C-alpha cells in the first residue's frame, strides 16, 4: 500500500500566484504566436505560391513563433505545477476563463486589435460560460 505524501494546503495568495502564472504565460504565448502569424501574412496564400513545404518553412523560420511556443510550454508546465498543489475543479475553469479576458486585453494593447464592445461582450460571455461548463 502506498502512503500519499502529506501536502500543505496552499494559501489563497499562493493559489492566486499559481493560477496567475498559468494565465500570464498562456497569454504571452498566444499573443506572440498571433503576432508571428500576422507577420507572415495569410498562410493559405503562402501555401498557394510555395506549397505546403514553403508554408511550413515560413512558420519554422519565424523567431516570434518559437518565442510563442516557448511561453505556451511554460504555461503547460505551470498548469501541471498548479494541478499538483490545487484542485482541478479550481485550476481548470479559473485559468481557462481568465485567459480569455487577459488575451482580449493583451490583443488590444500589443496586437492593436480593434476590441470593440461586441468583442468585449463576447469575451465576458465566453469567460463566464467556460467557467460554468468546466466547474
Amino acid at each position, binding site marked *: 500500500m502506498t502512503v500519499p505524501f502529506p501536502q500543505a494546503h496552499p494559501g489563497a495568495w499562493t493559489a492566486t500566484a499559481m493560477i496567475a502564472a498559468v494565465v500570464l504565460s498562456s497569454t504571452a504565448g*498566444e*499573443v506572440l*504566436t*498571433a503576432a508571428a*502569424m*500576422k507577420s*507572415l*501574412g*495569410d*498562410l*493559405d496564400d503562402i501555401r498557394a505560391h510555395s506549397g505546403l513545404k514553403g508554408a511550413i518553412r515560413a*512558420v519554422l523560420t519565424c523567431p516570434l513563433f518559437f518565442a510563442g511556443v516557448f511561453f505556451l510550454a511554460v504555461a503547460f508546465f505551470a498548469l501541471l505545477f498548479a494541478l499538483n498543489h490545487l484542485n482541478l475543479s479550481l485550476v481548470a475553469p479559473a485559468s*481557462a476563463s481568465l485567459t*480569455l479576458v487577459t*488575451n*482580449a486585453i493583451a*490583443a*488590444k494593447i500589443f*496586437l*492593436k*486589435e*480593434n*476590441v*470593440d464592445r*461586441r*468583442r468585449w*461582450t*463576447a*469575451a*465576458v*460571455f*465566453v469567460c*463566464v*460560460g*467556460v*467557467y*460554468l*461548463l*468546466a*466547474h
Partner: protein
Amino acid sequence: MAQHSLTLRQYLLLGLVAVCAPLGDTCLSRGMTQMPAISLSHPGALVAAVFTPWIASGIALLIGFFASYLTALSWADLTFVLPATAFGNVIVALLSRFWLHESISLERWAGIVLITLGVGFVAQGPSLTERPAPQPEAEKVEAR
C-alpha cells in the same frame, strides 16, 4: 471598419479548430485510461503508448488543431479565433449529452448558452482589424 467576410473554407477551418482540440484531448484521455499505470522508471512504456490507436489518433487530431489554429491566426484576429476554440467545449458537452447520454446540469446548460451567444456575437463582426495601408516610399519623400 470594413467587413472581412469569411469564405466557406475559412469557416470550415474555424470548425476544425473547434472540433480537433476537444476530440484530441478525449482520444488521449481514453487511450491513457486504457493503459496500465506507467512508471517513470519505465519510460519505454510511454513511447509505446504513442503507437496505440487512441493515443496516435489524439496526437494526429492535436497536430491538426495546431495547424488550423495557426492558419486561422494568419488571416483573423486573436480575439476572433479564441471564442471558436472555446466553442469546442460546447461540442464536447453536447456530444456527451446526446451520444453518451450523460446528464448535463442546469449550470452547464447556462455555460453552453453563454458560449454560444459569445461566439455568435464575434462571428457577426469583422474577422480582422482594418489597418491603414503602408505609405509608399515615393509618396513619403514627396510629402517632405
